């Protein structure tokens, strides 16, 4: 059964009298224990998607239409009190900057103990023991010492571990991790990614990883959703998306990686930039940068089409599939 299902979600931003669409018709489902990655460049709307799932979109943004269901409970229409419960116990968030979650004037210990005591009534001493045990389980060396330290005394990787410890305490069904390792060094990043993977597996938590790094995504996620200019353009099993990308944008994104070109040779770049909110073109948003764009792409928005195990929104792929089907039909005749 679906743990989380997002259906036809539209999120708009009302800026200077203009109603600008940040998310257009986004749908996906997340099962219990499943790990999904949302990939896209800045401005694609992937962070907004993360925030709208827990209904944290502030003015000038608002959810225009669509539904977000957590086990058949509608989140978009929830009362603030119920939402609070959902945010704490069912869905947890990990941000790029751990200081967004940690309170700089409280010790690590105080914040952990508070998290424990907010939903179970136990003594400070017991809570302290649990907290230290959790710090230990996220591989923090000498947790007793760290317990009494302030967030600024810890390195970035250590802070992210503390956040994961807090998340573990809350024991949510879903973790939304918004670029959790972008600010970290490669060796630390590898450790944090491994840690995230381990805790999700061990506690059968679902993970929604928001990232721009396809390398990280391929290590973590089972399924990948590629977003461009507020829309989902491709969705499928991670290996499939990375090894056999269908949408020209996904192809471009992968081809632009340095490891895809011979050393010393030019990289395969995508021309131009992602259009900003107020200058999104008509038709397929990618047409201005797409090498295969036709007049149809400039006028109409392509629908999703099943291509193998992935689904893609692209006329080129659609044409290829229909041609292929026609050919096989003719052959069978």
């Amino acid at each position, binding site marked *: 059964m679906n743990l989380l299902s997002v259906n036809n979600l539209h999120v708009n*931003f009302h*800026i*200077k009298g203009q109603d*600008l669409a*940040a998310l257009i018709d986004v749908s996906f489902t997340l099962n219990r224990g499943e790990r999904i990655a949302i990939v896209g460049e*800045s*401005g694609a709307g992937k*962070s*907004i998607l993360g*925030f709208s799932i827990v209904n*944290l*979109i*502030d003015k*000038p*943004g608002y959810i225009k239409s669509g539904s977000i269901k957590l086990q058949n409970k509608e989140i978009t229409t929830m009362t603030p009190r119920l939402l609070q419960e959902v945010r704490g116990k069912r869905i947890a968030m990990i*941000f*790029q*900057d751990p200081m*967004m979650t940690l309170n700089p004037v409280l010790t690590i210990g105080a914040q952990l103990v508070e998290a424990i005591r907010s939903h179970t009534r136990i003594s400070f001493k017991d809570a302290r023991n649990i907290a230290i045990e959790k710090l230990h389980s996220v591989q923090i060396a000498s947790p007793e010492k760290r317990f009494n330290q302030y967030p600024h005394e810890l390195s970035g990787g250590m802070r992210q571990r503390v956040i994961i410890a807090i998340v573990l305490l809350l024991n949510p069904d879903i973790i939304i991790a*918004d670029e959790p390792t972008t600010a970290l060094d490669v060796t630390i990043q590898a450790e944090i990614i491994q840690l995230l993977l381990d805790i999700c597996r061990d506690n059968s938590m679902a993970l929604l990883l928001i990232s721009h790094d396809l390398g990280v995504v391929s290590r973590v996620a089972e399924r990948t959703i590629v977003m461009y200019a507020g829309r989902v353009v491709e969705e499928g099993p991670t290996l499939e998306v990375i090894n056999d990308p269908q949408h020209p944008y996904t192809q471009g994104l992968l081809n632009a990686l340095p490891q895809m070109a011979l050393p010393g040779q030019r990289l395969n770049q995508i021309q131009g930039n992602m259009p*900003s*909110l*107020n*200058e999104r073109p008509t038709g397929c948003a990618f047409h201005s940068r797409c090498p295969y764009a036709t007049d149809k792409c400039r006028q109409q928005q392509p629908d999703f089409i099943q291509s193998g195990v992935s689904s893609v929104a692209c006329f080129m792929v659609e044409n290829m599939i229909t041609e292929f089907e026609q050919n096989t039909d003719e052959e069978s005749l």
Partner: protein
Amino acid sequence: MRHLKKDIIPPLQESRWSHIWAGFLGDKLATLSLAILVFYCLVAIFAPLLAPYNINSPNFMDLTNAEIAPSWISGDERFLLGTDDQGRDMLSVVLYGTRLSLTIGICAVLIQITLGICIGLISGYLGGRIDNFLMRCADIQLSFSTMMVAIVFLAVFQALFGMDMYQQLAMIMLILVIGLAEWPLFARTIRASVLAEKQKEYVDAARIMGISPKRIMFKHILPNTLTPVLVIFTVQISNAIVAEAALSFLGLGMPASDPSLGALISVGFNYMFSGSWWICIIPSLTLIILILVMNMLGDWLRDHLNPKTYRD
């Protein structure tokens, strides 16, 4: 949400100033304040043309006309706002007084800004011992209250050079004293912004180009630090006007022969309870409205220009 804003807002940022201007026009109170301030400035500039009487003419003071009530009470058509204790037309006197008060206020703040910018830039950009020395000077300056310094200074000046000399130089002295007393406010603000700007890479880029420190300070850093200065500027003008009024009220400001708003209030205060209330109330109201309007503009600017509180 901070995080989200970053994602959404920048591509829409056209010109920040036109954006702020649009927001300003949308705020009725702010627009009204600006309109009143512009009115005050125009009145101050064109006081010699607008005033019904020439205050420099020997006939202006006529004791036979003393203490005539405003025209809607006395019915005397000659004097719209009545006359003061020496028979001067209140309207003319208030017009000239406003002109004087605004001049003193603006000039004093210009001195403050010039000093503040130079000291703040040098202090922030060069850092080290110079910074330490200049900022300790600022601390010492701030530890004396402006009024105290001004009172002591002006009183000593009066005692040393006598009343006549003082009356001739009163305006310049007031500008200098108020101007010199409050430079640390600007210097500190500028220094803080310079310290922040200095970290940015465009300053390094300019240094790598071999551009001289003087040019980097004034051409590259200064334009980026002026936003908070603009806010303090409006507030400081009103402070300077109030300081001048207070000094004049205490008899250390402008002489009665060449009165600013403060001096007028001071004179009028003696007649407050003898029935001639307008001599005091009219300049007081003029002053209060002016200060109120300037503070409102200052507040509005502070709320909307401060990058921390800057929202769309």
